[in-house]
């Protein structure tokens, strides 16, 4: 697993790659928490999963845990670059219903920022 983190406005973009399972869960959780701690003005989370080849419920648990943190302050979560293995897990868990999907990071940033400033998406 590799993680690349970038703050864009009030969005934290996490570009994940590789296999997201129990073996990397602690590491991923720590990196995301650190980024949220370091950037208190971040409100929304964007996961770019284009290069994620595998995601299981342990990995999804880390993602949803971070969503819980930001959602208490009205933050939203979006996914870009969804591939079949990840899409399936998001659908089975119902996460598609509580998150947004966009083709590109830019689209995600624009939409979340607008939604956050104006009316809900």
């Amino acid at each position, binding site marked *: 697993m590799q993680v690349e983190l970038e703050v864009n406005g009030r969005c934290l973009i996490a570009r994940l790659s590789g296999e997201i399972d*129990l073996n990397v869960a602690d590491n991923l959780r720590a990196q995301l928490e650190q980024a949220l701690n370091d950037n208190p003005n971040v409100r929304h989370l964007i996961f770019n999963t284009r290069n994620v080849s*595998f995601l299981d419920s342990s990995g999804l648990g880390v993602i949803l845990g971070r969503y819980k943190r930001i959602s208490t302050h009205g933050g939203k979560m979006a996914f870009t670059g969804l591939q079949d293995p990840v899409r399936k897990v998001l659908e089975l*868990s119902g996460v598609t219903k509580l998150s947004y999907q966009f083709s590109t990071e830019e689209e995600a940033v624009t939409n979340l920022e607008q939604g956050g400033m104006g009316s809900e998406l």
Partner: protein
Amino acid sequence: MNYKNLLRLEFLSVPENVGVARVSIAAFTSQLDCTVSQLDDIKGAVSEAVSNSIIHGYKGEPHHIITITAKLWDDTLEITVEDTGTGIPDIKRAMQSGYSTNPERLGLGFSFMRSFMDSVRVESIPGKGTTVTMTKKIFASSLNNHAYES
């Protein structure tokens, strides 16, 4: 012997081995002319069952043994994941979607296994261990075109 092929894996209950188990069972299954999506499902089911044995069965202790047995019948894969850990007191409840004894977890492991595989059977004795047996019928993909595949 009625099965066409057999693979048994035994490994330590450490998180590093979740991926090893996934890759090994996927390589074993690839003998059948299966689709990428079927392989993804099988990897997912193995990952959930092995993670459960590590986290719940052995409470994260790294020196225990997990055993996976994979059998290929004509067109069906049977996978058994076994631990000799804590066991499950109430299997029915444990298998309910969203139920977890660990507040940090989602309680979706069994639910994913059931979505990914055709059948999931759980046997467990508290204090003795847990055995999860899953089957999946493999249909050859009509999209696969393996003119010279051996």
